[in-house]
């Protein structure tokens, strides 16, 4: 059954991607890209990667689509006819594809338990991490403890991307609240949005702190919390949203998250252990690991939330500015 589902989903994915190539209306392209993200997340669920699916659904389908729509609002939705010759790109792509397919012939079989990728460190993570770290979700323990350096780097990249977008576009001024925006005429929508936004924030908190036991964690929780405020901004207008969470606070929060993460590492340094080795944070090493993971997941969540919301504010601020002119 899982194989059939996999095949059908991959087929739909290929059809969607194939259509994206030929459609000239960029708005449709972005909508299809949303479907594409949803489908790939479904495939991740089917291949047992629940955490990855969680992230792809929230980030890929949610935030990417919103940002792309914001860009389209500024740049126009029609793609002009291409002047490129299509032969050369097609040739390059076919040669690359043929080389890769030739490469896959030597790949280990799909789903084979003797695959070399499963022989090296994975057995250790699977067998020892529930005892060593004390939490059932192996992805979280690898992400936040064994490979904590890597995750620190990723968090810093997200932070840097937010800085990059801000330096390119700038944040909206806070007291420009005079412009009319938001979906004023949709009364039902406004009422329902008011009802579900608290639910979303609650769910984000659940994901943040339940990430040790089920799928979830700081990355996903940050994005979901940002999605709640993006929804608020879309329905009630950007000025209202910047009133609730001012951009100034977001800048501080984005830095604070990275600081919490790195600070946890420094604390463990002071307790005469390695950087980001949480075992010394409490008397019992397992409890120490747990404290450390909660702390750094919190840092990740705060940074991702603030960075995503900053990026959204920057794009939304641009569209509002265009509206005035």
């Amino acid at each position: 059954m899982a194989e059939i589902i996999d095949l059908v989903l991959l087929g739909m994915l290929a059809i969607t991607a194939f259509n994206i190539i030929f459609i000239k209306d960029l708005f449709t392209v972005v909508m299809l890209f949303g479907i594409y993200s949803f489908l790939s997340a479904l495939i991740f669920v089917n291949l047992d990667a629940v955490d990855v699916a969680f992230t792809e659904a929230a980030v890929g389908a949610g935030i990417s689509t919103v940002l792309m729509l914001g860009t389209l609002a500024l740049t126009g939705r029609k793609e002009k006819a291409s002047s490129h010759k299509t032969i050369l790109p097609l040739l390059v792509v076919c040669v690359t594809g043929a080389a890769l397919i030739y490469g896959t012939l030597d790949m280990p079989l799909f789903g084979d338990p003797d695959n070399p990728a499963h022989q090296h460190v994975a057995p250790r993570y699977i067998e020892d991490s529930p005892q060593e770290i004390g939490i059932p979700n192996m992805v979280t323990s690898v992400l936040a403890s064994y490979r904590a350096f890597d995750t620190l780097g990723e968090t810093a990249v997200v932070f840097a991307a937010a800085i990059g977008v801000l330096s390119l576009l700038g944040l909206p001024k806070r007291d420009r609240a005079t412009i009319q925006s938001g979906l004023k005429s949709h009364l039902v929508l406004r009422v329902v949005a008011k009802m579900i936004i608290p639910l979303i924030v609650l769910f984000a908190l659940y994901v943040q702190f339940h990430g040790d036991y089920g799928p979830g964690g700081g990355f996903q929780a940050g994005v979901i919390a940002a999605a709640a405020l993006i929804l608020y901004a879309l329905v009630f207008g950007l000025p209202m949203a910047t009133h609730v969470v001012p951009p100034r606070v977001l800048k501080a929060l984005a830095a604070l998250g990275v600081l919490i993460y790195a600070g946890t590492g420094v604390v463990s340094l002071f307790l005469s252990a390695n950087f980001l080795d949480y075992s010394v944070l409490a008397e019992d090493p397992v409890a120490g690991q747990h404290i450390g993971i909660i702390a750094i997941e919190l840092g990740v969540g705060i940074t991702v939330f603030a960075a995503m919301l900053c990026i959204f504010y920057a794009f939304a601020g641009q569209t509002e500015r265009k509206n005035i002119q």
Partner: protein
Amino acid sequence: MSFIVDHYNYWIVVLLMMMGFYVVIAANNLVKKIVGLNIFQTSVFMMYISIGKVNGGSAPIAAEGITTYSNPLPHVLILTAIVVGVATTAVGLALVVRIKRAYGTVEENEFEDKEDLI
């Protein structure tokens, strides 16, 4: 037959990668190029996750009565890669917005006529 069953996942992933790659090099519009880049990126993610799958395995969250788990390592790598991917996409889109403001167009072939404006 078993050869196809053992490899079809990789082949479709390569196909998706080719489509994304084609959009990146053949499309004129910068926004579409970024969409293509995202398709390419997702296909790479799928490749990793396919490698991590174990037949008869289950999601790598410890539970009673389950003995085989899929490999958690690719999941970790891809989880962070997705978030970083959207962050870089955001930077790319921000650049597109600035290009639109500076040149008045996001079509690649129209920049050449406007080079003297810089």
